[in-house]
């Protein structure tokens, strides 16, 4: 009996030797995997087919959080509507806010669109700035570095392994960025509107101007008054591209397109949201869809 218990114990130690990482979204998950490779096991909590603000706090997520060594969040308020009660009920001291196994990536990102005043009268505004930074391919390296330093801290035995992975990834990513940047320099689309301010980081990076949003205020469903205003504005400014995400209703965008001769393109907000398994596919997909 003792032997059995001992061997179960040993087995579990061997099986769970990896650093168990939970990430709130897929893009963070795939970057964590690039840095941790075989020494980590990554679980993504929020499915990429859903609105990242409104992930359903299913009890099954509790069992995932319960066993995590490291929780990597997007931050900037994006998880505010679903993650805090889960962290509270997961009974895991490692991943509490402030603990060693809690990593808020937004702390390593120069946030844009930081509001000077915050009130819910302006809709669902995040006081820390626009939290959708993961659409900017240049910020991937910030994310990778932040994850690498955290892994060094948590798993001191494999410091050189993580450093090597980061070096490899940095090289791979830099050469990809060169390609992407040169492709984007030929992009003819310079003016767009979007449903929600999801792609501001990408647009800012490549000097594409966002003229307006289909939702009148962040988190508020489109109104006919606002839609008509938007159509007039788009006609005046000759805007021919509407950026739509996968999870909002698409009727309004299609209606606006029919009135303005613009084209609705469905852009992934997170890795894999419109198919494609790799990080490069994710960003190339955003670029292609906007510029095509």
């Amino acid at each position, binding site marked *: 009996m003792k032997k059995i218990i001992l061997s179960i114990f040993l087995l579990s130690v061997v099986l769970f030797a990896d650093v168990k990482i939970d990430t709130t979204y897929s893009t963070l998950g795939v970057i964590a995997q690039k840095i941790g490779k075989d020494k980590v096991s990554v679980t993504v909590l929020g499915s990429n087919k859903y609105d990242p603000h409104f992930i*359903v706090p299913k009890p099954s997520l*509790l069992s995932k959080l319960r066993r995590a060594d490291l929780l990597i969040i997007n931050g900037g308020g994006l998880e505010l509507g679903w993650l805090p009660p889960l962290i509270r009920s997961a009974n895991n001291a490692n991943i509490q806010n402030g603990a060693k196994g809690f990593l808020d990536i937004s702390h390593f990102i120069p946030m844009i669109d930081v509001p000077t005043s915050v009130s819910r009268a302006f809709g669902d505004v995040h006081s820390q700035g626009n939290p959708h930074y993961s659409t900017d391919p240049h910020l991937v390296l910030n994310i990778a570095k932040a994850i690498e330093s955290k892994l060094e801290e948590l798993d001191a035995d494999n410091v050189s392994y993580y450093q090597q992975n980061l070096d490899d990834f940095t090289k791979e990513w830099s050469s990809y960025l060169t390609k992407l940047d040169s492709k984007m320099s030929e992009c003819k689309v310079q003016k767009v509107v979007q449903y929600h301010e999801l792609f501001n980081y990408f647009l800012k990076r490549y000097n594409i101007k966002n003229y307006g949003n289909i939702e009148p205020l962040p988190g508020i469903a489109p109104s006919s008054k606002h839609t008509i205003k938007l159509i007039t504005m788009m006609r005046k400014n000759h805007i021919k591209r509407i950026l739509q995400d996968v999870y909002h209703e698409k009727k309004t965008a299609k209606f606006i397109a029919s009135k303005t001769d613009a084209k609705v393109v469905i852009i992934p907000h997170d890795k894999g949201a419109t198919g494609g398994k790799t990080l490069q596919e994710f960003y190339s997909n955003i670029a292609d869809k906007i510029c095509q």
Partner: protein
Amino acid sequence: MKKKIFLSAFIASSLFADAELDAMKKQLEQQKIITQKLETKLDILTKKVDSKVENVNTSSSFSQNAYLPDIALILNMSAVSRDMKNSDYEKLSIPGFIDEGEMHLPFNKNRGFNLNYAEVAMHSVVDPYFEAFAMFHLHPDEFEIGEAYVQTTALPYGLRVKAGKFKSNFGRENAKHQHSWHFDAQPIIYKALFGPDSISDAGIQVQYIVPTDDYLMLGLEAMQGTNDRSFGDTDANNLYVGYVKSSVDVGDDLSILGGLSLAHGTNTTHHKTDIYGVDLTLRNQFGSYSSLMWQSEFLQRDKDIGSQTTKQAGLYSEMVYQYNNNYSAGIRYDAITKNSDANNLTKYTTMVEFKPFPMSRLRLSYSYDKTKELNGERESINEVMLTLNIAAGAHGAHDY
């Protein structure tokens, strides 16, 4: 080979560059020291020693603003139309459970307008080991501590301890606050067994999450047992609650949560009361904003009152369809299934809900209630109600 040469040349050049940089830094440091010395000399010579220190920040020395707790104001109000006079409504009873005039109707009591409550909800991290919560429930003429408790955040092995006054995690609906219910009225079986506050008491709770792939949670609570509908023996603390809850996902969209609960206490006759609960919730997502939720609970009470053990049971089953961010609709069926008089003790409720924003909610509901009795006569009550609920301020997200 070429690469190697190039690389070593590169390294060499960068090394040289580093050495040069270091030398320059050193030089600069030395220059600084010389300048400082000269300045001091000059000051002494000219006797112009400046004794003033410049002000670089003006922080308030004892300010604790950054530690303020999250505070939210929750308001609930209604307009009610009902085919029964207020004076009769207050005298209703539930046969076998609640005697005439003992109903306690905290919410939506009056035909016409009701301000049900203004609640102040507070939450704060205490230190690296504890979190604190409080829910101050304010009626128009009453102040009540709905809940006030601390819970641990740093215990190992998947454990968490809660202490204070709190709502028991018995069943599915018990721990939820009225403002997060899908229907405005409490399920009839809860009302019959526990009254309006459900199982809410001073006590201590321990919860353990088993480290399995699927969610499995075990909980134990020791409570004072002041609820005299089912417990209420005042000689000592008398209530113990235990439960197991588990959940599985079927794909990304369907989640199933089930639980078994037991409450064991001593009632006002100094004899034992046992309450068994079974709950099941299914929720299927049709995208981010649309879902279908089906939640049911069955509760049975065995109450020993000395001369006999009364066995009573009831259930409710509710289904809510969320159409989008703004609209949802639902139906609920309530029934007492086992009682001295269980004949047709049922209630039907239907509602439509409009949420302009996640913090505000308007709900229109209609209910047909056949569970009540007035002066020994069974009554059927029709009720149409419009409620408005808002949560303003820093109010955290709700559990599943």
